[in-house]
């Protein structure tokens, strides 16, 4: 009887299974549990630096995208203002702080507007591929059998195909028509989607296969839950925990693919939207003729954005992986350790 009465509060930290990140979630307001916020709160030192830098960069890009009309002095397709046509290939000046292009576009304005296109494409591409990839992955992983085998082989085949080339072919197929903004962005977005779906598919599927054997899913099976319900209620939320991470990784991939498409001439036309890769392509001959500003800024914009997203993704990756996560050192600890190592 005595043992029953001993309170069952776990000791300082209970079993190993309790210890991992989830343990610290208890009693926190809900918003602190959101993916990115919880990561920031967990992080420390270099990792926090990386994460925060990344978030700031992403924020800047987002602000540029949303407020492009306010930030950019001119439209993305403006060749002049009330004072007449811009002089093409003008070096940076007060009027055009980053100069003008061969066509006579204002480089600064186009770089700012380019953020909008980039964000737009990321949203389209990543959302579409998350949606498709998750559904297919769940079904394939859970149902298994020939459906699974076929989907896996197809996904692997697509995955094995150099993604850029697939994106090119898809762009041609999709944008066969006209070059409106929506058309152009959708074409780029969808073609990137096709490339990404296999990735989400793979991750979600393998998670699903793993989860399918987890006791909590089996316990639902033992109860006689319908398959749909098991997928929706038990597997879905658990299988998608890696998604934010892949999301960031794919976002940077999406930007690079979009830029590469633009660079190869399959992008969006300048009068429809501003796109960094396209601008870079157009400025190829400028660079070797001493006109550095037309290439440098769009190029840096790509690098800047990708770095931002990658920093967020990388640090989230580290934070998700207990082996890679850094812990804050206690003041006390650091001091006493130093003294000991003398």
């Amino acid at each position, binding site marked *: 009887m005595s043992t029953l009465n001993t309170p069952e509060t776990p000791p300082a930290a209970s079993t190993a299974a309790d210890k991992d990140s989830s343990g610290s979630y208890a009693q926190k307001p809900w918003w602190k549990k959101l993916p990115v916020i919880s990561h920031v709160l967990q992080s420390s030192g270099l990792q926090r630096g990386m994460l925060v830098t990344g978030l700031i960069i992403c924020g800047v890009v987002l602000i540029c995208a949303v407020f492009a009309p306010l930030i950019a002095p001119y439209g993305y397709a403006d060749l002049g203002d009330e004072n007449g*046509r811009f002089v093409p290939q003008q070096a940076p000046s007060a009027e055009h702080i980053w100069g003008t292009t*061969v066509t006579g576009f204002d480089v600064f304005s186009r770089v700012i507007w380019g953020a909008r296109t980039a964000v737009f494409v990321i949203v389209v591409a990543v959302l579409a591929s998350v949606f498709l990839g998750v559904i297919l992955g769940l079904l394939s992983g859970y149902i298994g059998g020939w459906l699974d085998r076929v989907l896996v082989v197809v996904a692997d085949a697509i995955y094995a195909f150099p993604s850029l080339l697939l994106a090119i072919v898809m762009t041609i197929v999709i944008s066969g028509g*006209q070059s409106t903004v929506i058309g152009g962005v959708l074409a780029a977005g969808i073609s990137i989607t096709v490339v990404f779906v296999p990735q989400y598919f793979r991750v979600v599927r393998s998670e699903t296969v793993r989860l399918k054997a987890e006791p909590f899913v089996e316990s639902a099976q033992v109860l006689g839950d319908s398959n749909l319900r098991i997928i929706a209620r038990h597997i879905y939320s658990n299988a998608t925990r890696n998604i934010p991470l892949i999301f960031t990784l794919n976002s940077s991939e999406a930007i690079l693919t979009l830029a590469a498409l633009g660079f190869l*001439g399959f992008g969006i036309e300048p009068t429809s939207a501003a796109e960094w890769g396209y601008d870079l392509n157009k400025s190829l*001959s400028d660079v070797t*003729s001493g006109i550095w500003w037309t290439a440098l800024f769009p190029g840096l914009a790509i690098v800047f954005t990708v770095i931002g997203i990658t920093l967020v993704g990388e640090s989230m990756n580290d934070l998700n992986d207990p082996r890679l996560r850094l812990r804050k050192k206690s003041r006390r600890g650091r001091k006493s350790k130093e003294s000991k190592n003398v």
Partner: protein
Amino acid sequence: SSSTTGGSDSGEGGALSVGTTDKITVLDPAGSYDNGSFFVMQQVFPFLMEYKPGTSEIREGIAESADFVKPGEYEVKLKKDLKFANGNELTSSDVKFSFERQTKIQDPNGPASLLTAIDSIDTPDDQTVVFKLNRENDQTFPLVLAGPAGPVVDEDVFAADAITKDDEIVKGKAFAGPYEIDTYKFNELVTYKKYDGYSGGGEAAKSAEVQMKYYSDANNMKLDVEKGSIDVAYRSLSPTDIEDLEGKDNLTVHKGPGGEIRYIVYNLDTMPHGAKSDNPDEKKALAVRQAMASAVDRAAIAKDVYKDTYQPLYSYVPEGMKGANESLKGLYGDKQGGADTDAAKKFLEDAGVETPVNIKLQYNPDHYGPSSGDEYAAVKKQLEDTQLFKVDLQSTEWVQYAKDRTNDVYPMYQLGWFPDYSDADNYLVPFFYNTKEEPAFLANHFQDDSINKKLLEQVSQPDEGKREKLIGDIQDDLAKQLPTLPLLQGNQIAVADKNVKGIDETLDPSFQFRLSMLSK
């Protein structure tokens, strides 16, 4: 070249090296119909007729004489003792073989369509070829013989009913032009060496060896010519590159007239107020065209976008062709070739067209060079600056574009043209000769019987003076109706090391870049 020169390319006295961004499709004349391939053919194959350097006139090549012996019979007599580089004799049977195989093969990429004038070919003897034509005194026929369908090939090397592979041609040394191909690396590097047995119309090659380097990126070619890794850069440096290279001391930028033109096609059915539009009115539609013709500033585009690598085009036949005039100049804009908003406004007001006119303009970003986007951005700006137009500018990828344009999808759209042979005829007939049996390739629903008639007439007009007059009339008629809007004419541009000679001589209205005339 010996192995020790591995590192550097253009040591003094070494091979002349020329770069280009053109591409070869196939060497076999029956299988290609493009500039890049024809460029090689010009250097290595014999032609019955050739262009006289400096002009767009032709003279005999390996032919001793050539003329209409009857209205429907064109007789060519070959020079004696012609030989291919492989030692095979070049006789009338080779000539007959060369033309007949093209018609027989009918390669979808080939120029067989240029030879539709030929009914049959006779070879009464080894030296004589008689072409029986289905049109009397066809003045363009001799030009065809000098063009992409004209190379004479060795019947022992080429197959009669199939495209012969490049390697077989090179190995078989089936050459009899000023040069023969020494080594051939498809679209990467072609080296030519002088063919001593050349007996065409021109002089023997001035350089013993020429190295032709194929670039995919004009920018790389620019860097190479700047560094001196190549001696000549021919086609197609970007305007920015050319402008930059103009400032370099060791280089000269050579310009010559070009045969390439750029224009806007109006679909007379679907353009604003066109025959099948919501509000059809022929007069108003014409007024829109006239207003546009008055509003565009060609010189500004040529200067701003193309840095004068293109020049304004004021007619349907470009400068340099016999019979070319500037028929649009006096009619539109400020009548000096410049734009004039008031003139444009007047056209519209007179016809009672409501302004601003909403127009949908299509261009293609990938077929006519990388500057098309800039060009049309400028056109849009010019039109809109008049307050008379609202331009919805769109672009479509080439393959789709090529399909759509003939299916009435685009009310107005960009197009370009590079001639099959250097003659005014080639800028008029394919565009404007439009009958049920022989539709024009523009498919813009322009059909004018009097123009059709004049076009037929000029082809068979042996008198040069009369023919030029006819051609001038046709241009004037067209300028009034404006079925298309001529915009620009390309210049031929080559950038070369200061001490390369002969470039200006070959940059002529024949649009043929003859390597044999270059030396350093």
